[in-house]
């Protein structure tokens, strides 16, 4: 392995490859930060350009963009409550409130540090444990995947504005949205109402952009565009001792969660960031501080999503199975370059694989080293009047939504969810659980049904397998804990 790493370093540090890598970082940073432009979209857009490149150069560019967009999605999430990438959704929960308090620079510093640490650690783990991690992922089956999805759903639902019922409604609605279209297991149409556009389902990106970005613009359109006071802290501070003391445990835990989840095929960095946020709240002694600008609330999703993004490359490179939507596109890129990812790739193309590893290390390190100038540029955008910024954000949203599948219908979907998000928030109804339901819905349903098919309809399969049993028991406990706690208090007070 050491020789392969040296070979990778030698390959990456060729002038053309270094140039391409930093170009990828630049494009990824800027593109990922812009709402409506996701890492998946950027990788798709640049794929045709890489046809003429050497395979190593091509994949350094694609994986470099992939890693940097996961990071930069948090910039607009924190500054404008508009996640630049789906992976930054959970960062909005505490990042934007911190900006509203005038601590946008601190929020960005926390996110940069967490992203860099998560990404670098995730890459080191990726390099060191690829063969071992691949075998662990192989052992997971449908019951375990369902348990994981259930845990993610129940934990966040229980944190919804202190009202479990609202959270469950939101999650349920998100899960229901995910069922629209053709049932992947039976091929039957569901909830399409004979509308052709619904046959392929409701895409995640229009839902996300609508619920978060469009609703936010609608909300701000009612407000005065004059700022009474400038934010008190606009300087980005990455290494603040007192902040690091608060978040180092969160970063460590979230990095571990993110890497592990990222390795599991089909789960992805978005799920990892949501689950990590949920776990952080659960582990916290002061749950009420979350959603109001808690540093841990930023550190958790950012460490996890960058770690997960690196972890998602494990099944891709080791097994030829994409770990997320973007890695599925990268898989297509491999095939187009005449390469087949899988166990044989490490043997036949070890220079390429280790060059990718070294490239990812450089990209994740550059998050900490060179992100400040990029963020300074984006911080200046904050002083741009909202009558310019608002329309620009909306146009980015429209363009980004249309680019998903060249469909005006998706823009209608985005608008609908924009209306919905706006009105739900007016009535203090949380929208985060809806997003979680949409993200985890397909996994939860397909793995549940597959598990029952395997067991011949026996629901006890989830309890017979130790890992899924543990995950389900934890989910039930988490869901019922707030209710039981209340009942216990009432009982004790009566006694």
């Amino acid at each position: 392995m050491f020789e392969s790493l040296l070979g990778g370093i030698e390959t990456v540090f060729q002038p053309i490859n270094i140039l391409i890598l930093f170009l990828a970082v630049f494009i990824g940073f800027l593109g990922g930060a812009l709402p409506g432009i996701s890492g998946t979209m950027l990788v798709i857009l640049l794929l045709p350009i890489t046809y003429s490149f050497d395979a190593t150069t091509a994949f350094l560019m694609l994986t470099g963009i992939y890693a940097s967009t996961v990071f930069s999605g948090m910039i607009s999430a924190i500054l404008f409550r508009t996640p630049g990438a789906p992976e930054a959704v959970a960062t909005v929960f505490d990042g934007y409130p911190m900006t509203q308090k005038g601590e946008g620079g601190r929020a960005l510093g926390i996110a940069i540090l967490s992203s860099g640490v998560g990404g670098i650690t995730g890459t080191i783990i990726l390099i060191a444990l690829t063969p071992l991690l691949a075998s662990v992922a192989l052992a997971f089956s449908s019951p375990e995947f369902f348990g994981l999805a259930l845990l993610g759903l129940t934990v966040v639902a229980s944190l919804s504005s202190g009202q479990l019922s609202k959270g469950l409604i939101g999650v349920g609605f998100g899960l229901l949205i995910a069922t629209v279209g053709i049932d992947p297991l039976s091929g039957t149409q569901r909830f399409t109402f004979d509308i052709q556009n619904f046959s392929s389902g409701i895409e995640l990106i229009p839902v996300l952009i609508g619920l978060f970005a469009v609703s936010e613009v609608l909300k701000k359109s009612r407000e005065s565009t004059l700022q009474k006071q400038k934010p008190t802290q606009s300087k980005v501070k990455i290494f603040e001792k007192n902040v690091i003391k608060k978040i180092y445990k969160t970063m460590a835990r979230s990095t571990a969660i993110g890497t592990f989840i990222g390795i599991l095929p089909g789960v992805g960095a978005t799920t990892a960031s949501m689950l990590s946020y949920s776990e952080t709240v659960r582990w916290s002694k002061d749950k009420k501080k979350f959603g109001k600008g808690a540093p841990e609330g930023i550190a958790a999703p950012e460490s996890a999503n960058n770690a997960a993004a690196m972890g998602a490359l494990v099944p891709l490179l080791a097994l030829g199975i994409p770990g997320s939507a973007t890695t599925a596109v990268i898989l297509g890129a491999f095939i187009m370059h005449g390469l087949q990812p899988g166990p044989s790739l490490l043997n036949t193309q070890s220079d390429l694989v280790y060059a990718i590893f070294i490239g990812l290390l450089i990209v994740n390190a550059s998050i900490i080293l060179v992100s400040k100038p990029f963020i300074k540029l984006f911080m200046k955008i904050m002083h741009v009047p909202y009558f310019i910024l608002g329309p620009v954000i909306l146009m980015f949203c429209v363009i980004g939504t249309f680019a998903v599948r060249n469909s005006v219908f998706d823009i209608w979907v985005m608008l609908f969810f924009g209306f919905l998000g706006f009105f739900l928030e007016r009535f203090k109804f949380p929208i985060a659980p809806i997003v979680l339901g949409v993200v985890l819905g397909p996994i939860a349903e397909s793995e549940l049904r597959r598990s029952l098919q395997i067991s011949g309809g026996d629901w006890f399969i989830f309890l017979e397998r130790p890992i899924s049993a543990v995950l389900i028991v934890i989910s039930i406990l988490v869901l019922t804990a707030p209710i039981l706690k209340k009942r216990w208090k009432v009982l004790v007070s009566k006694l």
Partner: protein
Amino acid sequence: MLSEKIIAGSWLLFSLIFAVIALQLPLLENNSLSTGGWPLIVIGLMAVASAVLLANSRKYDSHQKQKEEKEVAVAVDASKLTQSETEEEVLEIEIDRPHNHWFIMAGFIVYITLLPFAGFIVSSFLFITVLVYLMGLRKKMGILVTSLVAITVFVILFGNVLGVPLPRGAAIVRDLSFMLY
């Protein structure tokens, strides 16, 4: 609060309607869940949660009232305010245009309806113009310049540099669009 009850009631009604639709799908197949099984579970969850929310809305009302009374008491004692709470007071948002969202929504509907016919440039130019006006800019030259610059940047950046597909419109508009992006 009445709005809480309306929302809870709306979700409950939504759940019931979709439950009826889901029941028309096959629920079980070979003892395991079929097409309609999972949606029915999810809808059931929503229905139960909506019913609980509806039932609890009175308790929520009284809790909110107590919370508001506490907040008033805290606000009176300025010395207890933390720095962030002080900043929140100063940054308190003023609602200048309470109905603006309706106009933007209407504009959006017209925009998306126009897109397949008039194409990206014409529709978006008009939409941006309306948006900039609705968001507060009143100078006519400012609105025009902002809209022109914005549409030019979008077409060059997305349509040409990045090659992102943009709506082309119909007939002659479509043909003209190929000359521009």
